[in-house]
């Protein structure tokens, strides 16, 4: 129970992200099957079966996620509020979860049945899945304009599902298309559907933004606003790829159109999942419109972000609080801890001591130097064809050792907390995971850059790991209040996440696009530039 409580906030975001993803895949597949596959004039029985299989898989995963979320939330509620099972069962989230699970099982049953007629009956459980999701959305708990907000949220989620959830089915369809012309017809039809979906989700989003963000100042002055802006940027990236697709279908070289469409589609799916995870990350935040006090101002952001020379002197371990848990308790007792609102498992946020801030800045700045050097070497290797510069990924090994030693100074080997004990702390575990990730990056990308790996999937490890790291950076939990320090820290982490996602998917496209596609050359320049920019952002990271 204590362990579940400790990771409850993070688990909620993950369950929500997974639920939104699988819900989009199930609904997107159903609409793709009905409005795209069934409308083209070809015999598409095999493709229909493939779509049904993937819809069923998405529905199974959706049911599993819904059950997990309801169980975790029920256990926390029952234990923390000493509630009977009967009382918990009457809660709104249990009802919403039950509707979601029953709808998912209906989809599973309907897609498993053999049939010769259409699939329009699948739209009913699809609508029920959206209803279940909206029942646990912000709109249900609003005091004002509840009915229109519920309607706009439903439209927003349904349109997102049709567009982003339909993309994997487009890829499946292109792969299985018996002829190039058939694949072209499918792509053209899906493009029309995607355009309508984008228009609906953008219009609904505009109206929701008036209610939840409220003002431009809230966009940069609150965590919620900043995360919404991030989602918009990633959405823009997706639309840019969509526009490249659109241009490709109309003017691209006929020989490579389908191969290029598939590759762009893969990148769009990856960025699409990142957008959905970003939306899930907002689950841990109250809307900006509700937090009008203590917002970060433009002047404060300017003061924090304006360039200064990096910090190359670190405080000693002895200057840091000996035990962060004891420090937390002391801060709580002295009243300096924020205790107004938090999710179960959190215990308020203790402000960092000046020594801790200096320690963190030193870490970021050294990491920035290493990443900047790697980015410049990668750029030199790409542009100037300088062979020795291709060993740049080895610098990741140094970065990994540095992260392992310094990211959690209270733990082994620098601090008193033992190695195994630290693995129970989700934050430390996440840092350890990142250190291992960096080693994997070094090994795989060095082998790729120096030609030790034959063309194949191993080359994709680096772009995938970088893109996943960017997505993870966007899904960490946030404070519920408008704590200025946390908002400012978030404002410096968001560019890193966006650059990482761009780096990962541009490298992916460079590796996967056919040689005839001109975009490939632009992508080959874009990802080293992203690495350079990540280094620059890290070098200017500040906590004071």
């Amino acid at each position, binding site marked *: 129970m204590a362990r579940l409580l400790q990771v409850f906030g993070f688990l909620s975001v993950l369950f*929500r992200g997974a639920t939104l993803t699988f819900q989009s895949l199930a609904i997107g597949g159903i609409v793709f099957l009905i409005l795209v596959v069934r409308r083209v004039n070809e015999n598409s029985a095999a493709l229909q079966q493939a779509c049904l299989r993937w819809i069923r898989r998405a529905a199974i995963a959706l049911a599993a996620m819904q059950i997990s979320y309801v169980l975790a939330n029920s256990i926390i509620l029952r234990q923390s509020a000493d509630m009977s099972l009967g009382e918990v069962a009457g809660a709104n989230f249990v009802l919403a979860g039950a509707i979601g699970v029953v709808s998912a099982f209906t989809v599973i049953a309907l897609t498993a049945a053999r049939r010769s007629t259409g699939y329009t009956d699948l739209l009913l459980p699809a609508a029920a899945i959206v209803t279940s999701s909206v029942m646990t959305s912000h709109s*249900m708990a609003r005091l004002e304009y509840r009915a229109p907000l519920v309607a706009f949220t439903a439209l927003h989620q349904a349109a997102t599902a049709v567009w982003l959830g339909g993309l994997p089915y487009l890829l499946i369809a292109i792969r299985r298309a018996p002829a190039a012309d058939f694949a072209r017809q499918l792509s053209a039809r899906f493009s029309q559907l995607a355009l309508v979906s984008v228009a609906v989700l953008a219009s609904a989003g505009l109206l929701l933004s008036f209610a939840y963000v409220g003002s431009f100042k809230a966009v940069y002055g609150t965590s919620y606003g900043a995360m919404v802006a991030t989602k918009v940027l990633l959405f823009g990236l997706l*639309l840019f790829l969509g526009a490249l697709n659109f241009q490709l279908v109309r003017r691209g070289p006929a020989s490579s159109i389908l191969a290029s469409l598939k590759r762009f589609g893969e990148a769009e799916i990856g960025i699409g999942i990142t957008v959905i995870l970003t939306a899930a990350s907002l689950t841990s935040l109250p809307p900006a419109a509700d937090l009008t006090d203590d917002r970060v101002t433009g002047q404060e952001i300017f003061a924090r972000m304006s360039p200064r020379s990096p910090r190359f002197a670190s405080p000693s371990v002895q200057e840091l609080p000996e035990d962060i848990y004891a420090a937390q308790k002391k801060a709580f007792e002295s009243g300096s801890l924020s205790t107004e609102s938090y999710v*179960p498992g959190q215990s308020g946020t203790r402000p960092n001591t000046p020594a801790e801030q200096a320690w963190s800045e030193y870490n970021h700045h050294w990491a920035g130097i290493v990443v900047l050097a790697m980015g410049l070497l990668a750029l030199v290797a790409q542009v100037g064809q300088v062979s020795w510069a291709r060993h740049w990924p080895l610098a990741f090994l140094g970065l990994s050792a540095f992260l392992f030693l310094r990211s959690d100074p209270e733990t082994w080997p620098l601090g008193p907390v033992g190695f195994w004990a630290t693995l129970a702390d989700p934050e430390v575990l996440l840092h350890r995971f990142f250190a291992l990730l960096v080693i994997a990056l070094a090994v795989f990308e060095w082998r790729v850059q120096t030609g030790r790996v034959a063309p194949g999937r191993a080359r994709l490890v680096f772009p995938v790991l970088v893109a996943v790291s960017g997505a993870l950076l966007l899904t960490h939990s946030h404070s519920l209040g408008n704590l200025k320090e946390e908002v400012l820290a978030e404002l410096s982490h968001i560019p890193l996440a966006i650059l990482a996602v761009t780096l990962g998917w541009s490298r992916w496209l460079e590796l996967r696009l056919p040689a005839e596609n001109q975009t490939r050359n632009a992508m080959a320049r874009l990802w080293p530039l992203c690495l350079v920019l990540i280094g620059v952002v890290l070098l200017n990271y500040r906590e004071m």
Partner: protein
Amino acid sequence: MQPSRRNPCALILFAAVAAFFIVAPAVAHAVLLESNPALKSAVSGPDVPIKLRFNVRIDALRSRLTLIRPDGSAQPLEISKQTPADTLSAEATGLTTGAYRLRWQVLASDGHITRGEIPFTVSPS
């Protein structure tokens, strides 16, 4: 603006304008907007009316208020049923002077659990 099928720039522009306004479907967490007693305030006893107002609708049946007395003992408070959808009310009676903490845990109408604590002191009336 209608995106032209011939000009991808128009599509990008349309998308960029649309993207600027899009917002996430957020899931709420209840946040305490105001309270009586206020955070770290001093109130007169022995009877103290409790009122907590949140930013969203609250499931009062599945929410809890607990008073931590100066000696560390916990006393559950009965939540009044006649309150607005965003408010929890109760009555703490017979409070002697000293430092108290009001612990709250709420279930928002969208199924999210939030908790918090309000330290306050009771001074002689």
